[in-house]
């Protein structure tokens, strides 16, 4: 792994924490867009040889995760006229501490996992921490749209883990997974838009009519 790839992975972790710390929705979306761009760069630099496969995957990922989905999410918050993530269920400081704990756990777990390749020694912990921070965002934020950002982060983490296997998972499959994530976020975005129209708020915590 080149030092450039390590730099990119370092930036991915920074963008994880940026989403965790930002209170403004537009800043969260900018951070997740930056992460999407970094994910698009990674297939090109993580392996020593450059293939057409890696180029198409990188461009496709960047187009969907750095351009189309962030633009779509921005449209959703503009229509909904919400700017601020006012009420996270746990405070920003506490979320940062949870994030730091996730980072420590990710590196500790990655250290004991038996790996086949030395190319990927930083990829696995970064993948794990991105999945965990995505989950933290998903669980602790009450706005539906921030939950979508959390889901996207989780998928980004899984994509990073998938990169360790990119020689073996066929190209068509990766494109299929990317498309599924795209459509999934798209449908979630539409539901978010409908929630806003029906409830005059994007808060998923107001969705409490159904229970036993």
């Amino acid at each position, binding site marked *: 792994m080149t030092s450039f790839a390590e730099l990119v992975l370092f930036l991915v972790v920074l963008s994880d924490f940026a989403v965790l710390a930002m209170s403004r929705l537009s800043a969260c979306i900018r951070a997740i867009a930056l992460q999407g761009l970094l994910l698009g760069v990674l297939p090109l630099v993580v392996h020593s040889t450059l293939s057409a496969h890696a180029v198409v995957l990188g461009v496709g990922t960047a187009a969907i995760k750095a351009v189309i989905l962030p633009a779509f999410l921005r449209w959703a918050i503009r229509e909904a006229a919400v700017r601020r993530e006012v009420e996270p269920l746990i405070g920003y400081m506490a979320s940062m501490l949870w994030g730091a704990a996730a980072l420590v756990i990710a590196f500790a777990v990655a250290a004991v996992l038996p790996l086949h390749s030395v190319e990927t020694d930083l990829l696995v912990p970064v993948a794990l921490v991105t999945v965990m921070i995505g989950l933290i965002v998903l669980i602790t934020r009450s706005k539906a749209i921030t939950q979508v950002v959390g889901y996207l982060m989780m998928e980004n983490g899984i994509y990073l883990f998938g990169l360790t296997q990119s020689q073996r998972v066929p190209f068509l499959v990766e494109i299929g*997974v990317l498309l599924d994530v795209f459509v999934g976020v798209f449908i979630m975005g539409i539901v978010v838009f409908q929630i806003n129209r029906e409830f005059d708020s994007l808060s998923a915590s107001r969705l409490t009519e*159904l229970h036993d």
Partner: protein
Amino acid sequence: MLLIALILLPALAAALAYAAPDAARAAILVGTAAVHLVLVLMTWAAPGQQALGGWLADDDLGRMILTLVSVIFLAVAHYAVCYRREENPRGGRAFASCMLGFLAAATVVTTSHHFALLWIGLETTTLAVAPLIYHRHDRRSLEAVWKYLVVSSVGIAFALLGVFLLATAQPSGATGGRPLVLDDLLAHAGALDAVWLRAAFVFMLIGFGTKMGLAPLHLWKPDTYGEAPSLVGALMAGALTSCAFLGLARVVSICYMAQQGAFVRPPLIGFGILSIAIAAAFILGQGDIKRLLAYSSVEHMGLLVLGLGLGGVGAYGAVLHAVNNGLAKAMIFLVVGNVVLATGTSAADEIRGVFRRLPGSGALLVVGLFAVTGSPPFGMFISEFAIINGAVGEHHPWVAAIVVALLAIIFVGIGAMILEMVYGERAPADTNAGGSDERTRLVVAPALLAVLVLGLGVYLPTRLIGALAGAAATLGGRAP
């Protein structure tokens, strides 16, 4: 060729149904379902087909679930066409397309022998049913579809991580075989790395378990089944959960082949008993018939993983139970759809005298009660008996005892609600003066499914027994 046609047919029909005029849409929906079923029956005549270099392949377990999906889909398609004449026709275009898209995705899941392809198919089923759940376009269905999307998407994301972990478990080169191809994973199971395989199993259990609705990952289920149109509930409880079960069964078969039985059995048995217990707790005192059926679905998913975890005769029972449960659940959801259509509510307290108002549906509801609770002579009795028999045979007598006790509680809970609905006196709010509201054409599909459920309880065709035994053998089981 046949396998590719099975996938392409509904996929193209989904696009066609979107473009076609209203008058043609019903014919496209039912016609596609019928042709799909004919093609599926042709795979029984020529088993063992392969396509796309082994990524798609026919095997006993996959073919059985595929047939189940196809039969349920034909029934639901016919019902949907008749139902739409009674209810508001909004979104008919998208509704038919999403249904056919679901059929295409479910066919990918059941014919796929490549784990990543299976995952793509399963995720697509999630996305295809989401607009169907939101059909009514009100607040409650909005809440239901949001919960469903978030919980299922996170669950299925875990399953994707599991797929990548499974790829990591495979050594590269000839010792590992083709990456993520089921047949090669089974053939080279001894070469799999045990740590990564266990991690893959855990993540897929959580992921596919969420899609199946195993407790405690079932929280989306009552809300979704409660708010979705009943025919969507039939599709989900009958077909979609069976597809998720297939995904779990695939990874379990690899674990057994790789001698990881001691690792996978306890969590499967634990999830199974917990699901049945939670279902029993929530079925007692439940006030809504559709939510009651959702908990009944949690119960039967629990029985399926219990059978998988027990092995032996239990595995045979689990595969048979998947078929019986799918047919019975689809049937009773369609009948409940008729009741909800006539009464305008799914709150059990407000539904009385179904037998008087809807003689056909009332009779079928009683049949459905006995079918889903596993009473003789229905198919579920045989499969539940096989699973309990498996528990005793594999030296887990206490598991058998607990399960029998819980099933008895569930029988009382479901029976009390449904019998009250069917034979109870008229509710105060009931303004119906008497006479029948039955729509005969809405009784056809559930009646045919009821005949199948009863038929499988009375007589199992030899071909089916052979396929069941073949499927059970890959899951560390055997025929009784």
